């Protein structure tokens, strides 16, 4: 399993990289961590004519906190760096807590946060996380820079709103709401695998244990992460007892239209989608009771 021939470019400047993309469009592919792209190239399922190795673009690897409390993470930041950054632990504890679920340490040493996002495997954790956190993606081409919201970014399997001449340069996570409690649940064949189905939940509860705001993002349930609207509506303004959570779980299941593959039927993903949604919500509620202990 050896890659097909390609031209190799290792730009030292972002502008250089964007120029290559402008010239070659679809025939060029960006090499960041390589953890998703190299297997495809080794299997000759991906055959870019030009491989743009952006690993020298050090300015794309950063984690910084804006004055508004938003966390800005460069696209080339290694997943392991995100996992270990105290800035992330403090200013986006949900992101910090989900990172260890991504693959294995050897993958996270090279894999980048941007790479996982652009690869857009719907069974991956990061895209769903970005959707739940309402992150924004900064895309740059030779001609312009634009920001696309996570909700508009993931189109279908391995397909995003990114244009052939564009590169993801950064991810912006809105300021963390200190009142958020979160839960994360996934069903995988093995730890570190892509999920059969998974859920991310964010809850804001008031002192009377009424839900002020809720977000649910499901993954492994189709071509892209899903935020089940009806389920979120059912949570809002409610005291989240067992009956309500059951209703929400059923609403999630009803809203999902997953595909079947050799690992799980569509029915499995639907049913268990409801289950993991409920468990993620229960985990979030558990945090609320524990006053935010992780």
């Amino acid at each position: 399993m050896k890659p097909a021939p390609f031209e190799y470019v290792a730009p030292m400047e972002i502008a250089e990289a964007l120029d290559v993309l402008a010239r070659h469009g679809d025939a060029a592919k960006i090499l960041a961590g390589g953890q998703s792209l190299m297997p495809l190239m080794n299997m000759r399922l991906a055959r870019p004519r030009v491989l743009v190795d952006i690993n020298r673009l050090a300015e794309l690897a950063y984690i910084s906190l804006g004055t508004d409390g938003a966390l800005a993470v460069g696209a080339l930041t290694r997943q392991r760096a995100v996992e270990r950054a105290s800035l992330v632990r403090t200013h986006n504890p949900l992101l910090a807590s989900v990172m260890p679920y991504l693959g294995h340490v050897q993958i996270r040493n090279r894999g980048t946060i941007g790479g996982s996002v652009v690869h857009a495997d719907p069974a991956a954790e990061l895209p769903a996380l970005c959707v739940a956190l309402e992150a924004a993606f900064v895309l740059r081409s030779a001609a312009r820079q634009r920001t696309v919201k996570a909700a508009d970014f993931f189109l279908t399997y391995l397909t995003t709103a990114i244009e052939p001449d564009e590169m993801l340069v950064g991810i912006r996570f809105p300021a963390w709401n200190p009142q958020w409690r979160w839960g994360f649940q996934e069903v995988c064949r093995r730890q570190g695998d892509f999920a059969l189905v998974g859920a991310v939940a964010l809850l804001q509860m008031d002192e009377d244990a009424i839900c002020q705001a809720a977000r649910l993002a499901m993954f492994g349930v189709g071509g892209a992460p899903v935020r089940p609207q009806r389920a979120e509506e059912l949570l809002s303004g409610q005291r989240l007892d067992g009956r309500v959570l059951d209703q929400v779980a059923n609403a999630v299941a009803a809203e999902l239209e997953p595909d079947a593959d050799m690992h799980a039927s569509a029915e499995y993903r639907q049913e268990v989608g409801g289950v993991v949604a409920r468990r993620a919500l229960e985990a979030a509620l558990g945090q609320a009771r524990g006053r935010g202990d992780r």
Partner: protein
Amino acid sequence: MTPQRSIQLRVNGRTYERTVEVRLTLADFVREELHLTGTHVGCEHGICGACTILFNGEAVRSCLLLAVQADGADLMTVEGLAQGEALHPLQQAFHEHHALQCGFCTPGFLMTACAFLQETSNPTEAQVREAISGNICRCTGYAPIVQAILLASRGG
């Protein structure tokens, strides 16, 4: 002839300068160009971990890197663990605990464990199990590998 590039890198403390095809994987480079055949290839799609080496001190899958990406890098392979005839404590511990049978996965586990112990000095058994979960072994059932790494972590 497909495109080539010159690279310079350090491997096990030695500097090498080579001209390579840009599509040559790092695993193949180490094995074929440098004749360091201790690093093994098991899947070429980043699952089995047999090809694990240290890249600037971090455990990586060398089948998912191109040799040209190692320009300027500092690598360590299994051949760099022992000091002459003196085995690295991990190698000694693997031997003690029968943590290898066919030995094909062993270099990958050793390098993963080496990086892990550099980072985590007093691991629990659960931490060790997780640290090696990206390496596949078909022979030993993992338990003796976990015991060996724990033994080595205690300086034994």
